[in-house]
């Protein structure tokens, strides 16, 4: 006798866990299926946890979630080959009782989140791959797994199986991902003693620092790098558009090696032991690449729905929020004794549109195209900025006015004045 549930959630990442937890807590019968050996084994993220999205799901998460450091300082660095220019923002205000951003390590965090799903009454089954959706006409009525006797039925199926959702593609819910809409990111975790991390970044206790990095390290490809401080480790990563990697013929690992060797970065990770290397695809197509989000008996959430804000490097919070909203949609329909048909599940899309998820994606909807059409953002500007700073800071007998003139000259020389103005306008339009 095949099993039947109120809802099946495919995937145990942030979106899947948020959805499964929210529904299980509301008393629905929930089955969560994960292909990895344990929840989280297939998940890769930097990772920054945005408190707000999780707080709306588990208000007291700070009591027992495995958090590394809360972020009190954000640095933005633009690198050229030898130097960097950048800004720092650090505030003691981030040392509140309820900090808003944390660095996390995904393996322990996902284990914790999955534990919450189980404690709420959700049934979690790992090492099981969903190979197909079972459909009755257009309506999704269950899933087929790779195991003997593997058909399982449900009133609704929430797809949260990550970027490049094979299921969604197979069911025809969305097409192939385009290489220009996907970033490939690689990262490493370098272990260092806690005191070393603290002294190198001038932090105490559980304070943390985040560095966002752009510039020459991407070889002019559209992409950025990052460095996060964890309790006893440093996460370092870099990502660029898949299409650019293909065009440039550079391996992601090469970029990461160069980043590690950069004079601005090398001293920060010196003496660390590389423990974990991971590569991951990130859907960065933005608003225009978001597929249909629901249909007869199904919804799609998180990375599998392309819900990533590449500009602010946010993904997991969009994933958790979309998972929660999908779950709340199911809960509301159950309460009203309404079936999970497409017209009813439209509430999910409405809720997403009304949330920061779609509002932010809409705000930056032109950005992917602009960045893609303007590679100089990632090649010419970093060099110019660093040269400008170098010129200004060099005490060599030249007056400041002449220096400014040199700087202005070099900007215009590399990129016409109209080009500069146009860039500024486009950026302003895209990020306004």
């Amino acid at each position, binding site marked *: 006798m095949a099993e039947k549930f109120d809802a099946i959630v495919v995937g145990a990442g942030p979106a899947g866990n948020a959805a499964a937890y929210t529904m299980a807590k509301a008393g629905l019968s929930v089955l969560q299926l994960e292909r990895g*050996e*344990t929840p989280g084994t297939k998940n890769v993220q930097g990772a920054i946890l945005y408190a707000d999205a999780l707080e709306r799901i588990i208000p007291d998460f700070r009591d027992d979630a495995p958090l590394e450091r809360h972020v009190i300082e954000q640095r933005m660095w633009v690198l050229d080959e030898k130097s960097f220019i950048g800004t720092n923002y650090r505030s003691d205000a981030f040392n509140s009782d309820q900090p808003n951003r944390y660095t996390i390590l995904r393996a322990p965090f996902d284990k914790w989140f999955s534990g919450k799903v189980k404690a709420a009454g959700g049934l979690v*089954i790992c090492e099981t791959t969903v190979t197909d959706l079972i459909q009755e006409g257009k309506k999704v009525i269950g899933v087929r797994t790779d195991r*003997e006797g593997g*058909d399982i039925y449900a009133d609704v199926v929430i797809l949260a199986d990550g970027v490049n959702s094979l299921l969604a593609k197979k069911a025809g819910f969305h097409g192939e991902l385009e290489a220009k809409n996907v970033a490939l990111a690689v990262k490493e975790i370098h*272990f260092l003693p806690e005191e070393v991390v603290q002294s190198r970044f001038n932090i105490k206790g559980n304070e943390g620092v985040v560095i966002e990095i752009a510039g020459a390290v991407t070889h002019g490809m559209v992409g950025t790098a990052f460095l996060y401080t964890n309790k006893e480790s440093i996460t370092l990563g870099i990502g660029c558009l898949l299409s650019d990697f293909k065009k440039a013929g550079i391996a992601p690992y090469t970029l990461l090696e160069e980043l590690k060797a950069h004079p601005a970065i090398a001293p920060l990770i010196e003496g660390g*032991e590389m*423990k*974990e290397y991971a590569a991951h695809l990130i859907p960065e197509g933005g608003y225009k690449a978001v597929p249909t989000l629901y249909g007869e008996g199904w919804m799609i959430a998180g990375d599998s729905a392309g819900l990533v804000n590449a500009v602010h490097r946010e993904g997991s919070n969009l994933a958790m929020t979309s998972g929660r909203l999908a779950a709340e949609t199911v809960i509301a329909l159950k309460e009203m004794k309404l079936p999970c048909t497409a017209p009813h599940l439209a509430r999910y899309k409405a809720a997403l549109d009304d949330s920061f998820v779609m509002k932010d994606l809409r705000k930056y909807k032109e950005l992917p195209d602009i960045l893609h059409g303007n590679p100089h953002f990632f090649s010419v500007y970093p060099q110019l900025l660093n040269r400008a700073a170098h010129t200004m800071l060099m005490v060599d007998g030249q007056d400041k006015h002449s220096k400014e003139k040199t700087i202005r000259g070099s900007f215009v020389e590399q990129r016409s004045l109209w080009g500069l103005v146009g860039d500024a306008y486009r950026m302003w339009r895209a990020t306004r």
Partner: protein
Amino acid sequence: MHIVVCIKQVPDSAQIRVHPVTNTIMRQGVPAIINPFDVFAIEEALRLKDRFGGRVTVLTMGPPQAEDALRKAIAYGADDVILLTDRAFAGADTLATSFALAQTIRKIGEEHPVDLVFTGKQTIDGDTAQVGPGIAKRLGLQLLTYVSAIDALDLQGRTITVQRRSEGGVQVIQTRLPALITMLEGSNQIRFASMDDMFRSARLTVPQWNKDRAGIEDVSKIGLKGSPTVVSKIFTPKPRAVKAQMIGADLDASGTANAILDILGSRHPRLAQELGLIAP
């Protein structure tokens, strides 16, 4: 027929790395798995059950987290599991461990008499291969170590015939039940669990037995007290000084092959002579 399989949850030693500079081991994030040798014991027990009927009980002694290993055993198709867990067992060596497990199996047998006990050949963390023989001696079971195949089982006649690995060959041995078998690796391949068993595993509440439930009264025989051996020192091995000299980074396969043979000839002439690469 009732089979008890003893398993152990161990850190996956394949994922432990030594810090090249400090020469300390990095345990962080090393996942816990069922001792790989025990997986062959589970599968062999399940195969006997498939052929002859009966039940398979999987037993482990360990901390509460070891229930993950038992959950997995249920997914493979075990009928029952028992987690033997008690602070009083802490610090047990192989003798004390085999005492606790033997007592528990005796207790299990009061309800369902045990015909066969299976264990893996050894664990990958302790590598002692002593607990199996220890349990057999304490329970008076016939001991069959390094078994590669079970040729015959006669439940009426109470006999079993197995092939067991010895140094120079294979012994075909016949003995009586009840017996304890330690299973040789590579002798079978663990099954892919059915969806039903996955559900059973996910819904299972793992039964925990403490020493009282296992009928262990004499605490002088368990844990640190019951262990004749004590660890007096733990240290890291001396590191090997140099890293490998890399060969052929800019050569094709054939260039690399010849480069390595050239090096053997020039730097290791005696070895090269023995290989016949260069004339003596």
